[in-house]
Each structure stands twice: as structure tokens, then as C-alpha cells.
């Protein structure tokens, strides 16, 4: 458990750096560090599928963000925060932590889920689907409907990006 706490602390530090630092490129790199630590966390929790996917998607997002920040001259946003803003923010963070502490205690212990359906998948997965990677047998056989929804979300995202950034049919502004 100790290494998980250390990794979580690293992620929180990286996220704070990414928010607070002034240089935009350094901020993007801090986000990438957070993603890398998250990937290592998945690996320690024995989820190699998620680790691979997280690493690869993080790389893609990082490349897109770096390309977007290097090539364009995005102006640096410097806003001075007033005392009232900081006070309200800290109050709401405290309230949220208090409510979270009282409500998250009722969650089941780490590694002891309430749902028993996972045991059924673990026992019957190899016989019913023939796939030795149980994650694949869950996401593409038992829960393939969810994967169809995810594929639809990605399809819609691609169509949306290509429609917003299209060249043909755009009105020329003088």
C-alpha cells in the first residue's frame, strides 16, 4: 500500500505544478508526468491492459498538446486573485473534504467489492469465451454492449472534430 500512497502524492504534486506554473509548455509536461505516474499505478494494481492504454493515450494527448502550444502564440493568462476568491475556494474545499470523509467511509474495503458478478466472470470466462485474457473476454463478450457505446462516442467525437475544423463549406470572412 505504501507505494500507492507515494504514487498518489506524486500525482497530486504534478497536478498542482501543472496548474500553478506560468510557462505553458512546462505545464503540459507536468500533465504528462501525472499520466506516466498513473500508468505505473495501474501496473502496480495488476492491470496491465489499463497501463498500456493509459500510457499510449497519454502520449497521443501530450503530442497534440505540445504541437498546439509550441506552434501557436497562445497569450499567457495572468490573473490576480482577490482575497475573497481564495477564501471562498478554501471554504468549499474544506466543505467537500468534510462531506467526502463522512460519506466515503461507507464504501467497501479496497479489494473487497460488493458486486459478486466478477467472480462469475473469473470462473466461467475461459470456458465460455476461450480467451485467456479475461479483460478482453469481459469487454468484448460479456459487456460488449458497453464497448459498442464507447465506439459510438469515439465515432461521434471524430465526426465532430472533422466537422468543426473542416475547410470545405466554411464561410469566408473578409
Amino acid at each position, binding site marked *: 500500500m505504501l507505494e500507492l500512497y507515494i504514487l498518489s502524492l506524486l500525482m497530486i504534486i504534478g497536478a498542482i505544478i501543472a496548474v500553478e506554473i506560468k510557462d505553458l509548455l512546462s505545464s503540459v509536461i507536468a500533465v504528462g508526468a501525472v499520466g506516466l505516474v498513473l500508468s505505473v499505478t495501474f501496473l502496480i494494481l495488476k492491470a*496491465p*491492459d489499463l*497501463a*498500456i*492504454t493509459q500510457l*499510449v*493515450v497519454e*502520449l*497521443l494527448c501530450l*503530442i*497534440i498538446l505540445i*504541437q*498546439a502550444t509550441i*506552434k501557436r502564440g497562445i497569450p499567457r493568462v495572468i490573473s490576480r486573485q482577490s482575497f475573497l476568491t481564495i477564501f471562498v475556494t478554501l471554504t468549499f474545499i474544506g466543505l467537500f473534504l468534510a462531506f467526502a470523509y463522512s460519506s466515503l467511509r461507507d464504501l467497501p474495503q479496497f479489494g473487497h467489492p460488493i458486486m459478486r458478478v466478477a467472480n462469475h466472470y473469473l470462473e466461467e470466462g*475461459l470456458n*465460455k*469465451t*476461450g*480467451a*485467456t*485474457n479475461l*479483460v*478482453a*473476454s469481459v*469487454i*468484448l*463478450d460479456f459487456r*460488449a*454492449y458497453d*464497448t*459498442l457505446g464507447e*465506439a459510438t462516442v*469515439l*465515432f461521434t*467525437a*471524430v465526426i465532430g*472534430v*472533422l466537422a468543426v*475544423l473542416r*475547410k470545405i463549406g*466554411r464561410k*469566408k*470572412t473578409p
Partner: protein
Amino acid sequence: MRQKNLRNQRSGMTLIVKTITRLTIGLILLFGIYIVLHGHITPGGGFAGGVIIALSFIHLMLAFGKDLALKKLSEVQASFFESLGAIMFLTIAILGFVGGYFFLNFFSDKGEPFRLFSAGIIPLCNVAICFKVGAGLFAIFAALVFLKIGSGEEK
């Protein structure tokens, strides 16, 4: 002839990056294909493998410039492969109705575990998702990063 074209191209990054890219890009593409095809045996699967394949084309685009990468996989081809993946996935899902319900694993013989040809429809679904994710993310990258939008930036 092709090598000469690659070397003399002005766009893209320096000679060092181009040489390293020429060495590694095939390996990256092969690794993506391996992850996809073995998705039902080892960790990985269609999504991760598709992103790795898209990353190999993005690598080509970053190192050699937009023109060469779009010559290898143009936007029309990317949109074709994305739609092909979606239709393949839906077709596999609907073919389950031959046995009763949506997404039925309709191969009666599931094959031997740890073999490449096993697990019924799962490798086919992996290939379909790989087409969809790879081509879709490549199209998003090409549109977001390299296509000039608006009238202000074109001039």
C-alpha cells in the same frame, strides 16, 4: 528513387530525426499489429493497439512533414477505415442474431486456449476496433494540428 525523395524533402525535422524514424517506424507499426492480434491472449487489445498504429503514422507526420504522411494514409482513406471498423463491429454484433441475441459469440468451437485462432469473435472485434480507433485518432490529429482553419491563419 523513393529514398531520394525522403532524403531531399525540406519539410519536417532534421536529418537525425528522419534517420531514426526510418529505423523505428516499422517496429512501432509491427508492435501495434502484434498488440491487436494477440489482444485475447496477452494484455492489450484493439484500443491500445489502434492507438499505437495511429502513433506510428503520427511519428511519420511529425518527422517528415504533413505531405508524406498524408500520402501514406490520406484523410479519405482514414475516414474510410474508420467507417469500415464501425461497420465491421456492428456486423459482428448483428451476426449474433443467428444464435439468438446481440453480440453472441457464435463460433461453437472456441478453439484451444493460448492459440492465435481461438476465442471466437473476440479477435475479429479487436481488429474492427483497431481500424476504428487508429484511423479516427489519426484523422483527429491531422485535423487538429496540421490543417489550417479559419481565414486568418491561411494568409
